[in-house]
């Protein structure tokens, strides 16, 4: 991992928080800042007070169990909060612009050109009745003003760059004629078409087999190094995190509960939930046959979170004061955790 970029700090919690410490060294440009984001319906909050930040060339991994709000955070960052949900609080700024100040047309100009997203299920995310080459070319026609002929040609080059064999004929294929892995590559090619400054990959590799996953990760890293894009990479695979992340934000039940540079996180996780995740991973790795250890219990539903720390009912360290919600606070430089006992764990 390159050290300079890794030192980039993510934003901490919101409103009544301590100010985000800035390191003295000059930094790469901040691409996206999400500050105190809360997304939900009138009845329940699904994403609560999430603050993250990514800089050019940096990769932030979002990890957490299913349903903890990773995808919603990503969608909100694109200004695509799905109905009937709304952004109830918080600010998202992209390259210095407050997204909520932009109208739908201005957002459309940014999306696909400066910020792009790769979706969880690539096959479903591609239009089934349009040829994939056309779907890639479209981005170039709309944002770069190319003619269709030029754009289709460039689409073929893009397909080649994501290592699709025989790109000419693949460009003419429909999504159902391609494998899941190939659709994923098409999505990546589409997302990278305009060399965006921010790439959001929502479980881009989860559905793929191990070999394809490794290839695609490698490819994304190379392309990122080439374009210097900031990347948010959603996954619940800690192996992938170790491979690709510079910084990690761990989410639990709608909140960021820990946020640290990847090495710090793996060396000394400070939130019991993160520690649980790590333990699962070690168990899974060591006892290949035995039962995979998991954190006891299940994630509370957004409408019925326990009072205080929402991890309280599953936490092995839960104590009396956990009835009070713990704030996300710095443990040491650039390492934040939302637990009353953060910093006490070895």
């Amino acid at each position, binding site marked *: 991992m390159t050290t300079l970029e890794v030192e980039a700090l993510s934003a901490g919690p919101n409103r009544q928080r301590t100010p985000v410490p800035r390191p003295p060294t000059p930094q790469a440009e901040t691409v996206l800042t999400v500050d105190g984001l809360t997304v939900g319906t009138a009845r329940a909050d699904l994403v609560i007070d999430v603050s993250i930040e990514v800089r050019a060339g940096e990769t932030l991994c979002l990890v957490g169990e299913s349903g903890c709000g990773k995808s919603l955070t990503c969608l909100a960052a*694109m200004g*695509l909060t*799905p109905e009937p949900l709304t952004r109830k609080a918080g600010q998202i700024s992209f390259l210095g612009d407050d997204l909520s100040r932009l109208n*739908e*047309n201005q*957002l*459309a*100009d*940014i*999306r*696909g*050109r400066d910020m*792009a*997203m790769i*979706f969880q*299920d690539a096959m*479903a*995310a*591609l*239009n*089934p*009745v*349009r040829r994939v080459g056309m779907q890639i070319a*479209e*981005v170039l026609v*709309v*944002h770069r003003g190319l003619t269709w002929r030029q754009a289709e040609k460039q689409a073929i080059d893009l397909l080649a760059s994501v290592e699709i064999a025989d790109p000419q004929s693949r460009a003419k294929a*429909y999504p*159902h*004629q391609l494998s899941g892995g190939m659709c994923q590559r098409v999505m990546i090619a*589409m997302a990278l078409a305009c060399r965006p400054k921010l790439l959001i990959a929502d479980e881009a590799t989860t559905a793929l087999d191990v070999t394809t996953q490794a290839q695609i990760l490698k490819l994304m890293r190379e392309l990122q190094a080439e374009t210097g894009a900031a990347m948010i990479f959603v996954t619940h695979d800690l192996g992938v995190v170790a491979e690709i992340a510079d910084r990690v934000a761990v989410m639990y039940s709608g909140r960021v509960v820990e946020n640290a540079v990847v090495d710090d996180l793996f060396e000394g996780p400070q939130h019991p939930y993160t520690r649980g995740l790590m333990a699962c991973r070690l168990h899974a790795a060591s006892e290949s046959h035995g039962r995979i250890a998991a954190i006891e219990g299940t994630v509370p539903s957004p409408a019925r979170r326990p009072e205080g720390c929402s991890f309280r009912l599953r936490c092995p360290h839960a104590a009396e004061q956990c009835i009070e919600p713990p704030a996300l606070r710095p443990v040491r430089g650039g390492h934040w955790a939302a637990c009353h006992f953060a910093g006490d764990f070895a």
Partner: protein
Amino acid sequence: MRLQFILAKLTRGCLTLLLAVTFVFIVLRVSGDPVAMMLPDDTPPAIVAEYRAAWGLDRSLPEQYVRYIWSAVQGDLGYSFRDDRPALEVVLERVPMTLLLGLSGFAITVVVGLVTGIAAALKRGTGIDHAAMAFSIFGHSMPNFFLAILMILLFSMMWRVLPSSGGATWWHLILPAVTLGIINAGTVARFTRSSMLEVLHQPYMRTARAKGLKLTRRVVAHAIPNAAIPVVTVLGLRLGSLIAGAVVVETVFAWPGIGLMLVNAVGQRDLPVVQTIVLLVALTMVLTNFIVDLTYGWLDPRIETREAKEDR
């Protein structure tokens, strides 16, 4: 599209035709004697018998049927009882008028149905949506003869702006075409709306937004091509039934097409003419169905693969 698939469709189409023709043939023969209908009550039995023999009605039903089918296959649909000309010739004279009415009605159905349906889906839950759905229910539940009469009352009698009967000028086309179009547009609008709504919620529509496409492009290039697939089926079926619907509308507006002719021919027991019209109507339905199937494969690239898989 593979040859086997086309052959299967064609065979099914021919069977449908045969069924329709047979059904009408039997119903017509058991429901009354054409000779008795045509000739005065006091006609001498000898003359009646002569007519019966001339029209082939003296033979047994199975024999009549076999002869009819045999000559029909050779293109001979018999002579009109009234007109003493080949029934096909008599009917074909009127076909252009029905096509004109049917296609004008169809064009109105397509334009009004699609625009209403798409607008309702895009403006879901708003006044536009409610108005569109009210219109759809109106079109769907209103019997066509009733709407036809209503149109005449309003436009021909109250406001006196449009002619209500006959087919002499283009003005005469407006009321029957609009009646026919509106009745079918309701169903098409409802179908288009639900098809669009389903498509608008698909992940690829979110992708289109994430790509930075503006609304018009998302709707035209991404939503409509997908929503069109089921709508085309409904449109195809409508096109077929428009001809059938034209029968009623033609009667009310005295539009000189095959619909009006059919009603008259049934009344006069002109069996060859009735049979010819039924055959033509059934043929259009079968043909439109066939065309819809072909279009389907062209609109939805997944179909061919699916069919190939099923065959294996």
